[in-house]
């Protein structure tokens, strides 16, 4: 756990809300608030399967609603699989 990160989710949420409010309003974000926000957001960072491990198979709909599984996603030399936050915000 990074320094100065509250364990309580509501305290973390308060930091994230204040950061988001200032960004949205175009108000300056202090270095202290920026660091607190980054630390609260990235606390206990976990990165999933390690190199050499097999990833779990899954089935999810794509942007057109077509169900996709690993079999039809992987190319002849593999797959670059990106987990990201959101396409909306």
């Amino acid at each position: 756990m990074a320094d100065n990160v509250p364990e309580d989710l509501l305290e973390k949420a308060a930091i994230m809300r204040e950061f988001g409010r200032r960004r949205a309003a175009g108000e300056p974000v202090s270095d202290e608030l920026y660091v607190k926000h980054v630390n609260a957001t990235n606390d206990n960072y976990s990165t999933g399967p390690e190199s050499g491990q097999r990833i779990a198979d899954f089935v999810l709909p794509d942007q057109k609603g077509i169900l996709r599984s690993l079999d039809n996603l992987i190319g002849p030399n593999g797959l670059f699989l990106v987990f990201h936050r959101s396409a909306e915000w």
Partner: protein
Amino acid sequence: MLEKNGVRITAVSYDSQKVLQDFADTHGIRFPLLSDHDSTVIRTFGIFNSNMAPGLRSYGVPHPVEYLVAPDGIVIRKYFVANYQHRVTASAVALREFGTVGERAPVVTLQSGALTVEIGLSDAKAFAGQEIGLFAKFKLEPGWHVYGTPLPAEYTATSITFDDPKIIRQSFELPETRPMEIAAPGETLPVYRGSFQGVGSLLLMFPLDAGETLLLGRLNFQQCSDAVCEAPQTIRFELPLTLEPFMVAPRKKQQPKS
């Protein structure tokens, strides 16, 4: 560049299919954007971000991770930086994994004495917070060498560094050196001869203003032949990079109140 190397790209988020469809249409994205709307797959991968309180719009997001997966489903390498605003570019991955760069990627050629070096980036364009790739192709005339590490203090090793506040983390690695005997019997120095290449990475800070910019770097080396050793040199260089504006999804249309 990944797709030219037979590697397909897929992105996963907790967004609804509708959000992903709008995003793909707006930005002309053709590769699959998968909707893990209840974060089931995100949890299965063990990357659910448990810092988000239920009720926040960010509840359900993953810790950002990128996996390069082999055709048999085994993870070859994973890329992550511990800040959700940072991401490794696909071209940087293609450079590291396959040694390929795009035709438009910026390159500068430096020449001094017996040494010619092409230094370039994996990408011509990047977003603030992205990690881009760096490469350098060295070529020495026959009979000449430059130094690697570890090295006694009186010699200068070959290195590339960037003194640029836009870059918050950097790396540059050269291949294994060859030992070369020096005057004292049994003593050797690590050297490079002929042609060799190095690769590295540059993590851009976030946020940065969009527009054209230059990344300012330095090549340090000392070239010697079997007969003469020149003084250490520093050559400064610039690589152009276009910083893209922060990508914002289209605003939702206001729904008429019923």
